[in-house]
């Protein structure tokens, strides 16, 4: 199935960056979970398994020519909408939100799959769409429709983080295709009342609280503002060289919320300091720039759109997660790709890497 010539074209830069970040992540999860009372297999072993499983999936994804995705895109989109509806009707409740769908053997989070699906759907639409100059307001009506259905469904779960990400991914791809000034101005004018309406009607009190806590962390010392304060203490107390591996007091004393998942970066920052963080940020920056490079090198418009979309997905995850951990954004529950513990995030990210690899390998085939 895999063309022999393709193997010689494997993007080692991409693979290498992902593997290095994953391994750093596993090391960090080892440290972050030492204070936990572990019942079954330790988290870092499980994360290693997720990484290997994810790479296998990436391999499968990149072995199939990505052009197939173009034909499948709308079907995929429709299927995902059905799944999102199903979640709201029969989904499993956990931590006050309904995000999971039980498929018998395992649970899936359709909202997570929607991130990749929106990339493919938008790529297909923009590819088939003849853009003379840049997108006008009228050109955007259809993609806005495509976008609003999943976003509303995800907000309803409620999962503000994922909804924001889906929006940002779609927005990034649109910016890449190009928007007319009139369109930009119109959108700004339309967004303000919608945002106001969303605040008043759509957001749950706990979501509003998180946003308010972000704006004023002292609002409640023990409420959700507590997360931001503790996380900033962890990051800041790391200093230049950090407190050393498994030496972080914030993490080892379990002051950090979700310290092996969403707040895993604060554990890393505390123990490895500015130097370690600099390295990690450079690695992530390289990954994102490399993703854009793959898009640039691709001579096929659909491929380039896909690559931009996947890269945008990774980029926004990284920026929002790090920004949240460092107190620049509200706490929205966005994982750091390849670094946060968890199978769902690992698989989504790896599917993305598979797509990038797919495009990169086939750049000479077109």
């Amino acid at each position: 199935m895999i063309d022999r010539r393709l193997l010689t074209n494997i993007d080692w830069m991409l693979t290498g960056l992902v593997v290095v970040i994953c391994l750093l992540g596993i090391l960090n999860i080892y440290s972050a979970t030492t204070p936990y009372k572990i019942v079954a297999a330790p988290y870092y072993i499980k994360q290693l398994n997720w990484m290997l499983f994810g790479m296998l999936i990436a391999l499968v994804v990149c072995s199939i020519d990505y052009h197939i995705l173009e034909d499948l895109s709308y079907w995929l989109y429709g299927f995902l909408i059905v799944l999102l509806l199903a979640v709201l009707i029969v989904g499993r409740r956990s931590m006050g939100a309904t995000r999971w769908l039980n498929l018998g053997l395992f649970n899936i989070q359709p909202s997570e799959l929607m991130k990749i699906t929106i990339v493919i759907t938008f790529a297909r639409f923009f590819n088939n769409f003849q853009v003379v100059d840049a997108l006008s307001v009228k050109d955007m009506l259809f993609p806005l429709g495509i976008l609003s259905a999943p976003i509303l469904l995800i907000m309803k779960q409620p999962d503000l983080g994922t909804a924001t990400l889906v929006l940002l991914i779609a927005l990034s791809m649109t910016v890449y295709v190009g928007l007319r000034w009139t369109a930009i101005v119109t959108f700004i004018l339309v967004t303000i009342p919608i945002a106001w309406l969303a605040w008043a009607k759509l957001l749950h009190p706990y979501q509003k609280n998180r946003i308010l806590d972000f704006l004023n962390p002292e609002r409640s010392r023990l409420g959700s503002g507590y997360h931001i304060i503790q996380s900033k203490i962890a990051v800041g107390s790391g200093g230049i060289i950090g407190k050393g591996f498994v030496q972080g007091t914030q993490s080892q004393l379990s002051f950090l919320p979700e310290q092996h998942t969403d707040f895993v970066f604060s554990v890393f920052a505390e123990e490895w300091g500015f130097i370690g963080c600099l390295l990690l940020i450079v690695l992530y920056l390289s990954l994102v720039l490399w993703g854009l490079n793959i898009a640039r090198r691709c001579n096929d418009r659909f491929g380039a759109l896909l690559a931009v979309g996947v890269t945008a997905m990774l980029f926004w995850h990284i920026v929002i997660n790090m920004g949240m951990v460092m107190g620049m954004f509200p706490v929205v529950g966005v994982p750091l790709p390849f670094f946060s513990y968890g199978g769902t995030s690992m698989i989504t990210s790896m599917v993305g890497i598979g797509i990038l690899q797919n495009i990169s390998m086939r750049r000479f085939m077109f």
Partner: protein
Amino acid sequence: MKEQRFVREIMASKRRIILLSFVVGAIFFLLLLRLWHLQILSADDYRSMSENNRLRFVPVAASRGAIMDRNGKVLVSNRPSYSLAVVPQEVKDKEALLNQLASLLTLDRGELAERWEKNMGRAKYYPIVLASNITRDQVEIIEENRLRLPGVEIEMKPVREYSSGILAAHLLGYIGELSEDEMNRKEYEDYNSGDYIGKNGIERSWEQELHGSDGGRQLEVDAHGRVLRIISETYPTVGNSVILTIDVNMQKSAERVFGDQAGAAVAMDVNTGEILAFVSNPGFDPALFSGKLPATKWKEYLDDIRHPLENKALTGQYPPGSIFKIITALAGLEEGKINESTSVNCTGSYDLGTSTFKCWNKHGHGITNLKKSLRESCDVYYYQLGEQLGVDRIAATAKKFRLGSPLGIGLNYEKPGMIPNAEWKQKRFGKRWYHGETLSVAIGQGYVLMTPIQMVSMIATVANEGTVYRPRLLKRIVDADGKLLKEFKPEILGSTGISADKFRLIKQGLYAVVNDAGGTGAAARLGDIKVAGKTGTSQVIKLRDSKLGTPYQYRDHALFVAFAPYDKPEIAVAVVVEHGKHGGSAAAPIAGRILRAWFNTKKPPQKALVPGSEDDEEDTPSGSQPLNSEGASND
């Protein structure tokens, strides 16, 4: 051509990628700047914060201040109550634990889980209260199974204890858990979820004083969040105690004499405005409200036709009926329309235009002067006076007594009552005022409404001849050690500006009401102590001349206001018996007994038992159906 455009487009998007790369680089640079700020510029601050972080802070709830009566007798205090809490980070299997707790303690599993979910956002070492007010037996069961229930804790919290049961329930109010709604209010910004606050009555109005400030323990914890030792402890500051103006003995007798009748009674010191008794009957059990009110009890309260949850003394607005004749009479004296000897011939009815207004006594009172008009509550006298005065003059006099607006007793939901005038009616209904309506107002019916607080304030002002005091419930605020923090002084709201001799004419009439033959308030007579008062009947619905079988809720309210002693007034009292029909028979005896209780507590040794006066008077036929002929002595 198409090929060319395609290439152009590709080139354009490649340029755009380069642009995007710069944007990405810039945003990552911002992340780095932030990192620089946190880890290099502010590193020292955060490092010291992280070092202090080995210490954890666990709040300890303050004990609420007590509520006492004017003599320092405790009405509301605290007793320990136990609640079940879990420390989430110590719990391995939440579901299993919930099942265990539910079956061990026979609690509702769903409710436990809901409480847990609601408090998810907090720090994981912070205990979540799953069930408050658990029984001693349940505490025992948890203690026995401690080892099988990791992370489960018993918390001791002081809860309210009402030493006298349901005494003065409406006045004292009750406390309850801070609701989500209240948590968002500015007033409660320093409170945490699960805190108890005053929800009603004194508990609510003086929440700031009673609450106290929570203390806390600084704990040192190990790597697993387990407590190693207590480093320091800030003791909670017990809330301040409030000392009410209420006299508990008087309050008790006042509530007792009501029996199971619905109504309100307020007693007031005429020279200070201090409220001595504050009754709304029937009461409710405030202790039930502080815990979880059983649904059946709640329904029972709601279904009771006598409305036990209503604070009738504060929020009940009643047409004052004949007690309002005091105001009409004073207006007449002020405006020079009448004097002491002005007489009216009452034939039992009064004609105005084409309509006829009846006196309550259809046989008429004959020649009636001011004193007699009060004593026998002649309606015709006031119809005529009302017509001469017009509604606006009556309203102006009522306003001098601060009627028609809340007096500011310091409890929530105080009602303003209603003093109508022509302008008000025009505004409210868009219609002009009719003379017939003035006649209704003159005898305290129609639109006129007064709360029992306003009634007592009015009669107290008559007693002290012109000073309107703010009705006051608090005497002092003291701290937990009894040190005086604040002393409340009498507050004068205003003076009526009506001369003392006019008040004296009225007072002579009110004395006659109780003490002269033919007076409607004979049932309030106290023998050695001279009482003056006025009866009133407050129309609930126009059902004149109906037989005795009027259904409860349509029966008229019985009213009585009084003060004593007549020569040197000390205390005023207002009594409303809902659907009690006649002021003289239903309300006057209650007022008499409340006054009696006051003079008994004041001079306990020799006057504890005043020979038989009470019982004698209760047998006296009440003034609403006077047996004496109306021609009887009036001067």
